[in-house]
């Protein structure tokens, strides 16, 4: 064999060996469009630093991911790792198909105390942790500065309490004809998670600490629901209509998510302000969390280890800063929120995002129960009964309580 041929043969041998020992991972997610590209960029970076690993990122439309994971678990065709919406994690941890992460976390230098408390209530089952937060979003106040000005209000001063919310709303309604505040009245999760912010800020809780019984039928609960009903009927500040009034400039204020800091400026034709959402007059700031958690599916040891390695890398402060800067997702770790590069980016590129970052320590998560969607839908249904004035807040919460209590076992 010529020297060249021998070199080629050796190269081929190495390539074959490399291919044979290359670790293939599949990663299911629902991050779409630009976020999906950011993910791919980070994956490429990881692959460059870890040549033996290939990660195939598979996009599954958000609403179908859990269905697909369900059927995948049934058909034993699970990916190596996946993300899922916060709220669906209890469902997956009960499947027996996920890998407990405690040992991996202990062996790595991942500091769990650095994580914000809100998202961390998820992923725990029988004392073991099966998932980690990888992204978050939360809710805060947006307002239309033009309408504020038209109504004679200072366009840079948002309401901070419920009384101010009502007062500002009424002023706007009287002086501009626009609605003061847009409520999400289409039911389902949208209504439920907005109302929970009101409940928490009035000092209430959705469920008891052991998650075994409803806790929303309380003075705080009636206050929060009364506020919603009053916004529509008593104060005339809000109305029941399809979502989109704020975007069209027909309502001056709205509670919406951190992701809208990217979309609103593109869609609306007025200057925007954002602030922590007004809280009950003697209550506390609150927000509701969305976001995703990452978890590993049980398979062979090598795959699991490789998948964990990626997760640990992805969860590191540096990578998270990159991730958040490019996607607009909220920091899940205090070290990221305090990171100078991150703060500089927020200040220059997304100033609207700062209040969302500021409220992260106060942001609460929805109850981590398996049948949360059912509980949430029922809660929303009764919240709307009160908003539609078909029941009083006390009646509505009482009815909700009696229907929800048996579901919490």
């Amino acid at each position, binding site marked *: 064999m010529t020297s060249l041929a021998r070199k080629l043969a050796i190269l081929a041998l190495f390539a074959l060996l490399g291919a044979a020992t290359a670790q293939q991972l599949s990663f299911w997610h629902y991050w779409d469009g630009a976020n999906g590209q950011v993910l791919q960029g980070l994956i490429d970076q990881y692959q460059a630093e870890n040549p033996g690993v290939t990660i195939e990122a598979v996009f599954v439309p958000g609403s179908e991911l*859990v*269905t697909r*994971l*369900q*059927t995948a*678990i*049934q058909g034993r065709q699970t990916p190596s790792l996946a993300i899922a919406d916060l709220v669906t994690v209890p*469902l*997956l941890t*009960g*499947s*027996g*198909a996920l890998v407990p992460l405690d040992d991996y976390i202990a062996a790595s230098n991942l500091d769990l105390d650095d994580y914000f408390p809100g998202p961390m209530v998820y992923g725990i089952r029988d004392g073991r942790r099966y998932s980690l937060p990888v992204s978050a979003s939360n809710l805060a106040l947006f307002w239309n500065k033009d309408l504020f000005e038209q109504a004679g209000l200072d366009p840079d001063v948002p309401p901070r309490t419920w009384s101010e919310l009502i007062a500002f709303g009424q002023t706007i309604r009287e002086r501009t004809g626009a609605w003061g505040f847009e409520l999400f*009245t*289409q*039911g*389902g999760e949208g209504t439920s998670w907005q109302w929970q912010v009101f409940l928490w800020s009035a000092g209430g809780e959705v469920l008891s600490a052991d998650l075994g019984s409803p806790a929303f039928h309380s003075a705080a609960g009636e206050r929060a629901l009364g506020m919603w009903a009053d916004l529509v009927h008593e104060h005339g500040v809000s109305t*029941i*209509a*399809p979502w*989109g009034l704020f975007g*069209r400039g*027909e309502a001056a204020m709205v509670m919406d998510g951190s992701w809208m800091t990217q979309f609103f400026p593109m869609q609306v034709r007025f200057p925007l302000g954002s602030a922590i959402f007004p809280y009950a007059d003697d209550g506390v700031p609150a927000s509701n969390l969305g976001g995703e958690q990452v978890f590993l599916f049980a398979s062979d040891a090598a795959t699991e280890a490789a998948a964990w390695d990626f997760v640990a890398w992805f969860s590191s402060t540096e990578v998270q800063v990159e991730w958040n800067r490019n996607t607009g997702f909220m920091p899940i770790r205090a070290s990221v929120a305090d990171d100078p590069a991150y703060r500089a980016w927020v200040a220059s590129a997304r100033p609207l995002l700062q209040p969302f970052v500021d409220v992260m320590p106060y942001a609460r998560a929805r109850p981590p129960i*398996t*049948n949360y*969607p*059912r509980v949430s*839908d029922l809660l929303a*249904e009764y919240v*709307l*009964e009160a908003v*539609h004035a*078909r029941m009083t807040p006390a009646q509505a919460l009482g009815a909700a309580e009696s229907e929800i209590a048996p579901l919490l076992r």
Partner: protein
Amino acid sequence: MVDKRAAAVRGTPRSPNGGVGRAWPEALLLLGPALLVLATFSVYPALASIHLSLFDWDGIRPVRAFVGLDNYTRLVASREFANSLRVTVVYSAGMTIAALAIGLLTAVLLNQRIRGIALYRVLFFLPVITPTVAAGVVWRHLFDPSQGVVNRSLAMVGVSGPSWLTDPAWALLAVILVGVWKRVGFNVVVYLAALQGVPRMLYEAAQLDGATPWQTLRYVTIPLLAPTTFFLSVTALIDAFQVFDLVYVMTSGGPLRSTDVFGFFLYRYGFRYHELGYASAIAFVMFALIFVATLVQYRLARGGGRAG
């Protein structure tokens, strides 16, 4: 018409429809593939799902808990089921009847050798072939209380339109309207084809007898179209009972569950609450109701005329 002598000469006992014994291998060959597919992907899964309805399972836990008929007793006693039943019946009856009536009327009008009939047919059929997702998304916007075309048109004639999809009193009607919109074209086309097979003589005879157009319609046309009406109402009802895409896109079963049709009710419990056993029970009940309704229609048609 068969020359029995000729058949006897050949010694093959053939009746016009093929002898029973002889037909088997051919029946198998002709029916086999279709039946195999239907058995594997329709019948078996349906049975598997009936089996599933006797369990409590979330689709993920490795163990399923047998609960017998609990899912059914829970279902029948639940207020959500009673509501969903009412909503589904109203939707199905409303959509089917309206689409039939409008379809028939339109076909009768078109049948008068109107100019541009081909264009009309296409325009009426467009909704039928539009993907339901796209249709739902578009109509959701059209029903917007302040900006939508529907309310703006009503405003032009001085009527203040309701807040369609967010008003529990109107949302179901809105969904029915879209269902009718999507269905009418199909009825028009089928009725039109059926009408074009009706001999002109009959109409002329009726006219000679002094019948008004309305009387002709009622006493000549409609009875003649009975088999077509049967076919259209059966298929429409089966479809309407299972409506899902529209509700999913437009109202998500709301507001206040006023559009929570069976299809969506089932989806909620199966894919949102992950109660596969319960959802399977809902499916079985749906299936039973559809079956009974169809059977009733079949019997009615049998009594009234040839159903084929």
